[in-house]
């Protein structure tokens, strides 16, 4: 298998193949002596040149994180043969952007109306969870096209709250 991997914004080309004893592994063309065992779902034990690493995998509403020991990395994995290609390669700046609820909670206030202009980082909604109020900010400069979650609505992590264009 060949993968394009992005770890905290840095791209790697990873080639992996099962061998008789363990794995054949190349990272950016460099061969790496490596062994891996899946200890349980989402937990991997990896040995690289005798050094042992425990890796934990975690999915949030929007991202995948990998923890090597106690250090967290944002990870993205793509199959370069896939037609979908790289997700959102240029969607960050152009096109409509969805605001997702980072946690379950209740929409307390909507601060910006539809068709109003917003700056990057400007608060659009206030979501309350565990008695704490959390401001949900605009990821880009643009216009609020749609407020999906009304005041008083209960939302789950990953729910679309608003769309900014």
């Amino acid at each position, binding site marked *: 298998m060949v993968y394009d*991997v992005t770890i905290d914004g840095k791209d790697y080309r*990873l080639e992996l193949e099962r061998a008789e004893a363990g794995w054949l592994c190349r990272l950016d063309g460099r061969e790496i002596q490596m062994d891996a065992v899946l200890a349980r779902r989402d937990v991997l034990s*990896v040995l690289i040149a005798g050094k042992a690493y425990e890796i*934990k995998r*975690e999915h949030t509403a929007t991202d995948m994180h990998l923890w090597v020991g*106690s250090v967290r990395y944002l990870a993205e994995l793509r199959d370069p043969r896939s037609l979908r290609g790289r997700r959102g390669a240029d969607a960050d700046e152009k096109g409509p952007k969805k605001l997702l609820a980072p*946690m379950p909670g209740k929409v307390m206030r909507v601060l910006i109306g539809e068709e109003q202009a917003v700056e990057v980082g400007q608060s659009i909604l206030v979501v309350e969870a*565990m008695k704490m109020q959390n401001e949900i900010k605009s990821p880009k400069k643009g216009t609020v096209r749609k407020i999906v979650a009304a005041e008083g609505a209960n939302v789950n992590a990953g729910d679309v709250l608003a769309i900014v264009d």
Partner: protein
Amino acid sequence: MFNKILIANRGEIAVRVIRACRELGIASVAVYSDVDRASLHVRKADEAYHIGPPAAAESYLNFAKILDVAKRSGADAIHPGYGFLSENAKFAQACVNAGVKFIGPTAASMEMMGSKTRARQEMEKAGVPLVPGTSRGLESAEQAEQVAAKIGYPVMLKAAAGGGGKGMRLVHRAEELKSALEAAQSEAERAFADREVYIEKTIINPRHIEMQVLADQHGNTVYLGERECSIQRRHQKVLEESPSPIVDADMRRRMGEVAVRVAKAAGYSNAGTVEFLVDQDKNFYFLEMNTRLQVEHPVTELTTGLDLVHLQIRIAAGEMLPFGQEDVRIRGHAIECRIYAEDPDNNYFPSPGKITLLLLPSGPGIRRDSGMYEGWTVPIDYDPLLAKLIGYGTNRTQAISRLTRALHEYFVGGIKTNISLFRRILTDADFQAGKLDTGYLDRLLKSKPPEVRGGHPEVAAIAAGIFAILDPALAPASNGNSFPKSADGKVSGTASSWKRAARVESLG
């Protein structure tokens, strides 16, 4: 002794009390709201009863529902835990009226300590050292100015019925006093329906040190050593330890004797905590008494070898304290970390949700009091405390190294927790030197975090690929494959394809 105890609480403290009941051969009764049906305390108790909707006012704070469950289940005592009804004098009295034993002090003791001005008046009479100030509500701005001029600025205005920073104002200059007093009074009126505000001298960079006391119903009162609780954020304790790095045997005896005097003046029985502010010259002043079991009681249990919940139950059942002051020995050092569901990268906002992966620390000197489990969804409706991790060692250095080691073993996936904050505190030079005060944590959080050493992004890159091959059930949607394939090329179950489809949808 009691036959059956109802625990009027939830989360880790309910589990803690249920365990004590089981150890003593007493049946336990849990209560739960709509969102707590699957919570750990319900799973661990002998009996469990539904008491209403998530809002605490309609469930965990509802006297009638809780007393009704006590009656229906045949419980002969109620343990309130901490928070919720634990310091509610009216509830303690309602238990007496219903013929159920409240495991805690009497309503009268709670009432005395519930009003800060009344507590100050009683403690003044008992000769307890107080922060200089008034022990009655301020009647006018002129009176406030006279007192402030006498005790010296800066001063603190505090609501008599106060708590949680509400109705509190720090005043640096005489010109600010009048408007600050009016603001504090109206805030106190709104928050507590009581506009009484008093004045205290502000102690600069104080430590917050508290003394555990235990009193039976026969007039025997002992102190069980102090807890250093200076590491706080927004008036919330985050990490506690016993003993305090600055308290020696002589200071412990003096503080302990004052704490016993406080408890006796309040006619106190059961477990309680006397809180002190300690200034830079190690003078200590009575702050308030907490009339309940504290969150941080495990550090005292580890350093004294006593089980405070067992003792609470035995005292409430009318037994005498089974030991005297001279039998209490402080041995070793214990530190507790409060593990909260909150996001350290997002200003410590709460982070409820489903726990998808839970790896637990163990080994020498580690105690874990927890209310969570893997697969459980942390509800949004309550305090974000998930668990407490406590490290014990023969001395402070060993306790720190064991706890640091255990924090690296601990992993909570799917939600954010403050575990990384504790790794930072425990490796901080000032913490290790015991240089603490109530401003410590704010200063630490404002400082630049240390560079992460030993990062391994290439290992993460390799692991990403291995996961996709060995454990593809939850492979990221951006992978681009229509069907996840396992290592042998078979398409995995339909359930995960549904999940994948849903994830693709949600990612847009």
